[in-house]
Each structure stands twice: as C-alpha cells, then as structure tokens.
C-alpha cells in the first residue's frame, strides 16, 4: 500500500502547485502509516525530481518518453494507472489543474476509485471514514465529502495547503515505462501555444494578482495595472466585461465563468464586486479593493480598501512598492 502523487513539470521545473500536491500526499501517507511515491509528467530534470524529497516524497517515477512532454489525456491516464497498480496506491493525489482534474476523472473510472476535486484541506480519517473538504458553489461554500471504497483520488486546489520544505532531502528517481502505444496518443496536441508571458507571471500559478475592471475605462490605461503588477511580481487579471470587449485576453478573466484564483493577494482596481466576480476570487488570502464608489459591493469582501480614483491611486502604489524594494 502507498500514496501516489502526480507531479506536473514544465520546462524542467516542478510546478509550484505540484510541490503542494507532493506535500499533501506525503502527509496523507504519514497519516496512513505508509510512504508517498511521485509519478512525474511533463518536461522534467532528474535533479529537480530528486528534490521532491524535500516535500516528503520517498521515490519518484519518471517516463522519459518524449511524447509525454505535452499533456495527452489518454497516455497520462494509462501511465498513472500503471504506476498506481505497481505501487498498490490506495490514495492518488493530483493538482486541481486542467491536467490533474481531467486525468483524475478518467483514472477514477479505470481504477474504480472515488474522487473529490477542488480539495482544500488534509483528509479527516476519524471513525474509519475518509472525509475531505472541498470548495463548492463557485467558492461560495465548502462541502465535507466522504470518499467511499478502497481507492481514493484527491485533486488539491492550488494555494490551499503549505508546501513542506525539508532542505537538502532527496528522493531516488527511477525510470518507469507503461508500454504506451500510438493509440494512447490519440488526443496528443498538434500544436502547443503558450501565452506570451513577456516576463510576466502566469495567472493560474500566481501568488499575487493585480486585476482591473470596467473602472479602468479602456485598454490604453492597462499600463497602470501592468506597472503595479511588474513592481510586485504579480500576474494581471480582469473582470468579465473587460475580456468580453477584448480590452484584455479571455484567459485573464476571473470569476464564476472565468478562472478561479486563490492567490495570497488579489488587488481589484475599478471592479464593482459582482457576485459572479467574487466567486472566482473570494478564496484569495488577502483582498485589496480600489474603487471610487464607497458603496461598491467589493468592499464587503475586502481586507483592505482605498476609496479613490484608480488613475490617482495606482501610480502611488507602484511608487510605494518601488521604494520598498
């Protein structure tokens, strides 16, 4: 018996969300009195994989098949299922990412496992039950969910648990092959187009986010958002109407019908705070709202606020960050 964690890598590095997943998995292993093995997907280096020891991982499996560098649902599912079988995994932990959750759902059928996505805490195992807390109703509520059966799959929401860090501890990296065939690559991408980061930070992985709404008046003013984001090392985001009219790309739109973010800091500039917008951001640790209308609903969800004009306030904030650094 063991715990298997699925670690996503990109450009040779283990993604930050996967360090959290590894930490989650090793803590579950400890609760169950067993060890945690990682199976890595994406482009990884052996040195970086070995460092998963710092998150409490005992062993890392890696298949260097080049076609696994990009996400292929069919192949990833088969690979991870094979690793789960080999390790006799009772619990499989993945990131609640577009990759992790998509693979998790297929795995749950193949391995006859129960599954919970969007999980925000370590499981409770009192009374022989296995209960996880997950976000529901678009961030407006939580549900304690009992996972039945012998095998469980958990997709962990980003930034909801602290990554462990036992400096210098390493894990052995073993090569692992699942005998993949061409058929497993039926949904392989013809092309992968990454966003032009231009030195910026990717929104789904960001710890800090600066976001603009209709109060920014037009795309020509976004330099104010970008300047503050750059000074902070933050990603930029926007409200739905802003991406609907193409002031900003769709992938920056957060909210109920956009992406959900849970950074340490979310700074909302000229955003009213409609319930559908809040749904995508209200699990942020600290929320700052800048709005010229003191009655804007967003202030009710905020930790810090400035009632003022974004065109006046934003340059002052950027200046203050620069001075601090």
């Amino acid at each position: 018996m063991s715990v298997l964690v699925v670690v996503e890598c990109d450009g040779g590095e283990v993604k930050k969300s996967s360090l959290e997943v590894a930490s989650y998995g090793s803590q579950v292993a400890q609760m169950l009195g067993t060890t945690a093995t990682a199976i890595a997907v994406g482009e990884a280096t052996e040195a970086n994989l070995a460092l998963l020891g710092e998150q409490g991982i005992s062993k890392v499996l890696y298949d260097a098949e080049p076609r696994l560098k990009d996400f292929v649902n069919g192949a990833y599912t088969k690979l991870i299922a094979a690793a789960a079988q080999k390790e006799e995994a009772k619990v499989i932990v993945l990131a609640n990412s577009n990759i992790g959750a998509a693979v998790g759902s297929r795995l749950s059928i193949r391995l006859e496992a129960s599954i919970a996505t969007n999980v925000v805490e370590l499981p409770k195992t009192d009374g022989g039950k296995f209960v996880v807390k997950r976000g529901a109703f678009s961030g407006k509520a939580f549900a304690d969910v009992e996972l039945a059966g012998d095998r469980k799959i958990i997709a962990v929401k980003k930034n909801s648990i602290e990554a462990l860090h036992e400096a210098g501890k390493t894990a052995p990296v073993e090569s692992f092959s699942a005998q993949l065939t061409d058929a497993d690559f039926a949904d392989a991408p013809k092309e992968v187009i990454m966003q032009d980061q231009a030195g910026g930070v990717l929104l789904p992985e960001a710890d800090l986010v600066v976001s603009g709404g209709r109060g920014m008046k037009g795309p020509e003013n976004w330099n104010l958002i970008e300047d503050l984001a750059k000074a902070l090392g933050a990603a930029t985001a926007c409200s739905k109407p802003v991406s609907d009219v193409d002031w900003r790309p769709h992938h920056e739109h957060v909210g109920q019908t956009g992406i959900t973010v849970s950074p340490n800091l979310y700074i909302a500039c000229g955003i009213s705070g409609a319930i559908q917008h809040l749904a995508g951001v209200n699990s942020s640790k600290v929320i700052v709202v800048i709005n010229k209308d003191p009655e804007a609903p967003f202030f009710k969800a905020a930790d810090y606020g400035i009632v003022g004009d974004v065109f006046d306030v934003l340059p002052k904030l950027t200046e203050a960050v620069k001075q601090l650094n």
Partner: protein
Amino acid sequence: MKFLVCISNVPDTTTKITFTPDNKEFNKAGVQFVINPWDEYALTRAIELKEAQGAGTVTVLNVGEADTEPNIRKALAIGADDAIRVNAHPKDAFFVAKQIAAVAKDGGYDVILMGKESIDYNGFQVHGMVGELLGIPTVAPAMKLDMSGNTATLEREIEGGKEIVEVNAPFVASCQQPMCEPRIPNMRGIMTARTKPLKVVEATADAARTEVETFALPPAKQGVKLIPAENAGELIRLLRNEAKVI
C-alpha cells in the same frame, strides 16, 4: 451527425447560497434555477455545427428530477431537437456519468458536448468519466470546436496556454468561452419547444461513490480596513508588515 448535449440544472449565478438546517443539502427555497452557464456554450455550438452541416440532430440530456423540465424546455426553445431526462436525483459525478454513458451507448451519438463544470458542484469530472466509460477521448476544457467531416479540431486550455487537438468522432468535449455566443430562446423557439419530444427514462442501479456529510459557508471577513487615498503608499506598508503577503 448526432449531437448529445448534457445540461445540468443549477442555481442562478446571483444566488445567495444557504443550506437546510442540518447543513446536508442546498436550500432550494426561493432559488431560481438555470441551465449551467457553461452548458449553454455546448448547446449553442452543437446547434451551430448541426446547422453548418445541414443535417443531424441535437439531443439534450439531463439527469434530474421533474423540476428540471423548465430548463430542458428552454434548451429545446434555444434549438435542440429533442430531449431525454434520466429521472433521478444526481447523486454524484460518478452516478451522473454512468447515466449519461448508458444513454449515449444506446443512442449512438457522434459528439457528446458538456460544459466545463457545473457551477454548483464544480467537479470538472463528468466529461472525463463519460469519455472513459465509453472508451473515447475527452477534450476538456475546450475553447474552440470546429468539425470537418468526422474530424474535430479543438483548442484545449491548459495552465498558461492552449493545445490544438484533433480527434475523430465519437468524442466528448467540455465547452467554455469563447467558443460561441450562447443563444437565447426566441418566440418561435418557445412555441415549438412545447411540442418537441421529451423522453423520461429511469436510472440505472449504480450507487454513488461520494456523499456530502456537511456543507459550510466560508468564514465571514473581519471587515475592510480603509486607507485614505492621499496616503495610498501606506497600503503597501500594511501589506508587507501586517498582512505579510508581499
């Protein structure tokens, strides 16, 4: 081509979420239910593709009790040809996926479209499970879907970018913006929807694999600390020294 569009029935996006006194169930009292917003993309795109092909059918499918029928009728008014309701409480993603897979197997559908996720359960699960149950690919979440003959070209969103994926029917895709502009029913649609077939079928005997023990609301915020605009820089100092997030 035969399109199957799976729609779930969810509380309107403005709903204030509350629970029954034992915190075991969502409190439906006074709540307006809508077609899951993501599923509207699936529905509209299926109708558009059928129209472009000049032939075929769009069937909508919901796993739910009789109270979901107004939204099934709404999907028919938007342009689906017929509908199936699996008469059961949607216990969990696995249970729902089993029902959908059973209907899909019998119906011989070429393309099964769903939304990215249900905004109540937020599972992002049913599409992957159905694909696996049927042994066909699932592309999730898809931002674009075009068909040429039997082959679909999709854009799949991944963190930080997108993948261009080509798959042959049959397949499952879960849809999100900017795939299309979701349609709203017009008067003619509403009239014809009344007479379009809505078949009710009984559920399979599958059990759920998960069960909600309790729901809870997030802890209330302490209240906002306001900083005067003249002194905006003070905010940055607080974020470093007090909140410790920068």
